[in-house]
């Protein structure tokens, strides 16, 4: 019989991450929200509010599309996190998690495997929107290095938000509860500087945006595209991710402990 050691947890994390991604691509109702809706919203925002760059106080940018890409990327990663949470809750509902719980793997591997899958969806989202941006005329001022920064930050953000989704899934064990947070992903982004410069937003959204960790993450995703790679922006981005990540990990650990104690 094999003992599951630290080295042997990695293949399990990998296998669960792979399953998580395969699930997403095999369920249109999971994949569509992640890529389709943010893309549609990008189209509308760009077409509908594109003239905003003419406003006197609007910062110098290559184009409104260039400005919006970060928002779409972040939105997609947040929706990927909700999708991951729904899938995890379904695993509880359908009893699939019993299979994992009865196997000789540490409990945290179940969650980390799922989050690794979500992180990869974050990469997919970043690549998708960078490609769309390039196709429709945006310019990545930071070049390949900038693109890599965006992709890496997107992956980390996805994992961090995934932690929140996982916490809710573990706590409730119900897909419908996690599903209900889809609108929240949209809304919370409105309270940040994702779609519009914070200086030009109206109160109280403007004040909320000033303190919203998502604004920092967006900054980290946006700078490489608009102005090039900047250490300060990367730090801000990582800081925002860290805040979300810490909250997510804590809530997940607490929820997991409560669930296993009740079992």
């Amino acid at each position: 019989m094999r003992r599951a050691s630290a080295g042997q947890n990695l293949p399990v994390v990998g296998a669960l991450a792979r399953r998580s991604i395969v699930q997403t691509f095999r369920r249109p109702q999971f994949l569509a929200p992640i890529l389709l809706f943010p893309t549609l919203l990008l189209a509308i925002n760009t077409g509908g509010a594109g003239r905003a760059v003419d406003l006197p106080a609007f910062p110098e940018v290559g184009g409104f599309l260039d400005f919006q890409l970060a928002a779409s990327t972040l939105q997609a990663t947040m929706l990927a996190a909700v999708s991951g949470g729904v899938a995890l809750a379904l695993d509880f509902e359908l009893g699939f998690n019993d299979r994992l719980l009865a196997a000789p793997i540490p409990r945290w591997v179940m969650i980390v495997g799922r989050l690794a899958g979500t992180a990869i969806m974050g990469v997919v989202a970043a690549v998708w929107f960078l490609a769309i941006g390039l196709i429709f005329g945006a310019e990545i001022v930071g070049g390949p290095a900038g693109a890599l920064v965006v992709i890496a930050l997107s992956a980390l953000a996805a994992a961090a938000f995934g932690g929140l989704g996982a916490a809710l899934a573990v706590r409730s064990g119900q897909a419908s509860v996690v599903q209900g947070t889809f609108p929240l992903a949209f809304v919370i982004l409105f309270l940040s500087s994702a779609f519009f410069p914070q200086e030009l937003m109206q109160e109280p959204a403007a004040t909320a945006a000033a303190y919203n960790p998502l604004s920092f993450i967006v900054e980290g995703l946006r700078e490489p595209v608009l102005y090039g790679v900047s250490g300060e922006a990367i730090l801000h981005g990582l800081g925002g991710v860290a805040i979300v990540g810490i909250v997510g990990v804590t809530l997940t650990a607490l929820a997991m402990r409560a669930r296993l104690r009740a079992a």
Partner: protein
Amino acid sequence: MAAIETNALERSFDELRAVAGIDMAVAEGEIYAFLGPNGAGKTTTVRMLTTLLRPTAGTARVAGHDVVGDPGAVRRQIGVALQEAALDPLMTGAELVRLQATLHGIARAEGRWKAAALLERVGLSDASSRRIGTYSGGMRRRLDLAAALVHEPRVLFLDEPTTGLDPASRQAIWDEVRNLNAGGTTVFLTTQYLEEADQLADRVGIIDEGLMRVEGTPGALKAQVGSPHLELSLADGGAERAEPVLARFGEVQPPRDGVVQVGLARGAAEIATVVLALDDAGLTVESLELVQPTLDDVFLAETGRHLEGADEGEDDSADPEPEAAGADARS
């Protein structure tokens, strides 16, 4: 060392004592069947033994390890095929078995060929690249069994492995269980089907309302509640004349509707002698049937209720209203 040992094992859910104190010992290499009606506590017991549920009192050891103190060690030694079949409809059969292999630390290449071999063994090779969502109930159970075996467990837990299956699928599962056991695997299965316990098990534990009522080999249990009896119908109203002849062999029940009963301690072995004796007395046997006591008789003796009759009454007959889960569209 016993493969499975429990001592006053208990599990309560708020006010409900689902398992009210069970003592049992399953020997290595044994097939042990846990027989009882719906709600008896079978699944709860299995979930405790497979570390999915924590006992509220008592102890349990599986493959020499405490389920509470050393659950990791238990999980390494057990294979589990649960009632809800813990399957993902979007995965293919092959993907599921390979995942199970990875969960047990089996290297990828080895996992691949083991999965292929097991799927071949349970007759799912052709379906292995199809999604589980397209599988029939019988196929899902066979797949679950294959997944449970990928790491060659010492103890295999099967929770109602053939519930809802057609006779052919049921037989296939039984054959597989016998093969496994022949190879040395201890099998603990729960069932509500008498025939399953009778056919498969070395020993049977009858559980009702969370308690073990009686335990033993199927033969011994049945012998406890009585011996076989022969029912004969005789030509030309010979039933009354047959009574004194039959009385030499065992206890005779007065004839009813032309059918007379005699208890036969040695069962089928005595039939020929009985028929010859009747023939010598000039009596012709039109038909005869040897009726054996069943585990249901055992259950009846212990609990005052029938085992299979109690299940039939709880059938869901009408289509239920789907739950108004408020599943509105969310964008």
